[in-house]
């Protein structure tokens, strides 16, 4: 056999042997990994692992246990799944207790999402306290100075995302002075006490149909006598964001009034005060009834919350 043919046979044999070996070891009888750990799971299984660990924490409140279950995973996996779960639960209007548990865990794991702000004890500033200013006798002008907490210290800034982001319309100014009139104007009732906020529920829900008006949600907070309550912090949350307003900053609409600009096709939750108690969940804009041939348009909502 000539040397060149010998080399060719040798080379072909080598390549064939290598190919057959790889087919056998990769396809026919590959290495079987039976002792894997969560970090090696496929992405969707990893996320489900995090979800399971977090739900277990909701059930047993054992922080050490959940941390050990999440230890082997990348922080990014944990953050992403936990954030998604919180947003899903907020949008679904789950109980405040569950959401607080989730928020506590998120804080412990250094995960943040705007939707959880309303449930985080430390992040929600207290309800602004309105101190009734005694009316000066010569000129009866009342000055309403919101306490420093009225400044939105933790107001989440809606980040540009693919989902429509409502833009908050009001900017709480440090002070506002009702237009001076001869009559004693806005008479602010004493600051609302937590028990009153705890007793609030949805008393009235009215669709506002005014063509050409930008879609919004009006919230009116009333006391036992039906009077408007100023200085109450109202939260509007949705799956990936939150917004806050304080009643009474548009005195021409009444002391208990606050509003939010909103977008269509988003489910909103309305909560009041630092309690974070969701009072209205799954609130969406709906089309207004129109006559045949008229162009359809979307209505706004007016919600009255009273004890």
């Amino acid at each position, binding site marked *: 056999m000539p040397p060149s043919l010998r080399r060719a046979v040798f080379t072909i044999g080598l390549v064939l042997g290598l190919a057959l070996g790889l087919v056998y070891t990769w396809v026919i009888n590959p290495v079987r*990994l039976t*002792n894997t750990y969560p970090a090696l799971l496929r992405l969707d299984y990893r996320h489900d692992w995090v979800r399971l660990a977090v739900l277990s924490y909701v059930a047993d409140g054992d922080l050490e246990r959940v941390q050990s279950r999440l230890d082997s995973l990348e922080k990014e996996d944990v953050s992403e799944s936990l954030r998604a779960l919180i947003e899903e639960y907020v949008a679904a209007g789950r109980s405040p207790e569950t959401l607080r548990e989730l928020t506590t865990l998120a804080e412990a794991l250094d995960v943040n999402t705007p939707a959880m702000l309303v449930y985080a004890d430390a992040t929600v500033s207290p309800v602004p306290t309105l101190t009734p200013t005694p009316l000066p006798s010569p000129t009866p002008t009342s000055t309403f100075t919101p306490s420093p907490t009225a400044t939105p210290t933790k107001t989440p800034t809606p980040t540009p995302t693919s989902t429509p982001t409502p833009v908050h319309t009001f900017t709480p100014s440090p002070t506002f002075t009702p237009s001076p009139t001869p009559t004693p104007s806005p008479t602010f009732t004493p600051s609302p006490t937590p028990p009153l906020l705890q007793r609030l529920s949805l008393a009235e829900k009215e669709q506002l149909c005014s063509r050409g008006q930008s879609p919004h949600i009006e919230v009116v907070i009333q006391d036992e006598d039906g009077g408007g309550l100023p200085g109450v912090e109202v939260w509007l949350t949705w799956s990936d964001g939150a917004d806050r307003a304080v009643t009474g900053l548009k005195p021409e609409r009444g002391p208990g009034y606050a509003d939010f600009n909103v977008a269509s096709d988003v489910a909103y939750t309305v909560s009041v005060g630092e309690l974070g108690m969701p009072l209205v969940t799954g609130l969406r804009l709906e089309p207004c009834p129109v006559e045949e041939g008229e162009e359809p348009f979307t209505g706004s909502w007016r919600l009255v919350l009273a004890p």
Partner: protein
Amino acid sequence: MVIGWWLWPVTYTNTSPSALREDYHDEYVLMVATAYEVEGDREKARERLTLLDSEDPSAPVVRLAQRLIEQGGSEEDVARLARLAQSLDATTPALMPYLQR
């Protein structure tokens, strides 16, 4: 074979829960039972358990519960597993007492 098995083996980064080490496997089953308690979604629990045993999804739950009973594990964990087993129609006499808790 040296190349295929040791030097350059098939790498597994997208594994399924069925490949988990025994302790993680147990944690997974226990977490499924606990999540079922929170969410009450039996079909979701069954779907997750199918990843461990496609023919009898309740089997890993019953096996773990019985092992925990034998080893004197947490009664709370056993009770959770027993409740999930019951919802999957897989209760055994050994699990019955834990359904009352």
